């Protein structure tokens, strides 16, 4: 039933919790996980500012996801990492809908409380607009 799972992550503590849930789900249905990390304008700006070149920017982003990736790998689940650019909410929605996933797993809170207050929560937007079932992890 839930074979193709899209796990939205930003490498934060919160997203580690949702990663564990995604793994449970994947184990139960022997499914695969695709980790998606969306970089918005502000993050792109600070990432580029703090790195010497393109290669380093990429390395640092993969490093950010390492904690999450490690958990998925040790669980022995087939996975893939996708990094996209744009507003997190709409980008996740568009990707989930065009790739036909069976389930989207997302944490209810990301890195920044202030951003959630100003922009509204990403998980809420995703739950509203994604066609497949969405699992929001508290």
């Amino acid at each position, binding site marked *: 039933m839930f074979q193709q799972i899209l796990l939205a992550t930003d490498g934060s503590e919160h997203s580690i919790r949702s990663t564990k849930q995604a793994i449970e789900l994947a184990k139960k249905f022997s499914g695969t996980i695709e980790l998606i990390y969306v970089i918005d304008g502000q993050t792109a700006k600070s990432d580029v500012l703090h790195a010497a070149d393109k290669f380093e920017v990429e390395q640092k982003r993969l490093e950010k996801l390492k904690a999450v990736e490690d958990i998925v790998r040790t669980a022995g689940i087939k996975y893939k990492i996708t990094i996209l*650019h744009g507003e997190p909410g709409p980008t996740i929605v568009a990707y989930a809908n065009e790739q036909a996933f069976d389930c989207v797993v997302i944490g209810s809170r990301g890195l920044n409380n202030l951003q959630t207050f*100003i922009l509204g929560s990403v998980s809420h937007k995703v739950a509203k607009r994604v066609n497949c079932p969405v699992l929001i992890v508290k």
Partner: protein
Amino acid sequence: MKVAQWKQEWFGNVKGDVLAGIVVALALIPEAIAFSIIAGVDPMVGLYASFCIAVVIAFVGGRPGMISAATGAMALLMVDLVAEHGLQYLFAATILTGMIQIIFGICKLAKAMKFVPRSVMVGFVNALAILIFTAQLPHFKGEGWIMYALVGLTLAIIYLLPRITTAVPSALVAIVVVTAIVVLGDIQVGTVGDMGALTQQLPVFLLPSIPFTWETLMIIFPYAFALAIVGLLESLLTSNIVDDMTDTESNKHRESRGQGIGNIIAGCFGGMAGCAMIGQSVINVKSGGRGRLSTLVAGIFLMFLIIVLGGLVVQIPMAALVGVMIMVSIGTFDWSSIRNINRLPRTDAAVMLVTVAVVVYTHDLSKGVFAGVLLSAIFFAAKISRVKVTNELVNQGQKRIYYLEGQLFFASISDLPVNFYFMDQVTEVEINLEKAHLWDDSAIGALDKIEMKFEQNQIAVSYSGLNADSQQLMQRIGGISKASGH
């Protein structure tokens, strides 16, 4: 192939580009006016500059989708020139800035960007944010609570409106709302009109009326040089950010030349020097802008709005502009550098802070960058000229092995001999260079001297672990090869 690329850059994304261009034009107006006020010139100077630079860059820039116009970084550099010599000298300096940037572009100096360390660039944007913020403080002087309330309202709209809708730039809504309140309520506060004239006409070609003498050149050259460097630094940083956001490549040398052409034309049409804008470029890409058309639309629509709405623009209260500029400074500041300052290497943090301090003290971004680059060069030299020497006894105390770790060159060898026991009781010494690299004549000379001193005490010296590069150098220069038996 060429034509296909040209077509893609211009018409690959027409709908997204036109819409994003309009959004950017709306967001540019308050900034162009506010930056003119920072520079101490009429709002028209910044608006003409933004129009000219955006339109020209659309054609000759190297990074499609990047927005260039009048900027805070450049405005801050020209304050003294305007105050001491007047507007005509600013136009002349702007043209000269463009010429210098074209030379930089032709000489492919964008490559030199790699010599500006990250910590200097972080210091650069942080200093810029601080200066834009402090430039707003004089507007509060002698104002009552009404002004404070209006600034507060502007900021509240800017930060809270995106919760409801992101279709229109919230800064523009804030300006419209606050202006409406002031006009309808007949509230007496300072407006843009008080800061200078706003003419509702297209810019005209006019060479600056200055004496074309050596003395004039000497006045404008230092400003033009600083403007050229700061403009290129910010433009190349912005183009890297746009590259990353859009996952595409850009031509940095073409961008340098393009910035130059843009500034020359701005100077000839009564505009001030400008460069790429990080904030506006991010807005453009976020709004769906990708191609050259977005930059062109932004420039043309900006001018259109001024010609049509100029009468309204002069009624914008300064409080609203100050609010927008506070937002710009908050957005410019790199907050992660404060959060992570403890995790950075000490020297990087020091370079960043020194860059900020020099800029805030001198009000000159180019001096800050220079100080930062210089300091990091010194730190680098100090770091690299440290050679670590450890040793161990082997063969029942008959032989001592010295391990050298680091770069051996003229600056690092002076303290080297103190690490060796020349009066040792051993009969044999091995110098292990596995983790060392020999760079020059002085390094070979130093090793020769150490070898000689040991031999005076009847201790045989051998070398091990030389890397190929160092070995070649040793053989070429000679000295050592005979003793080490090569």
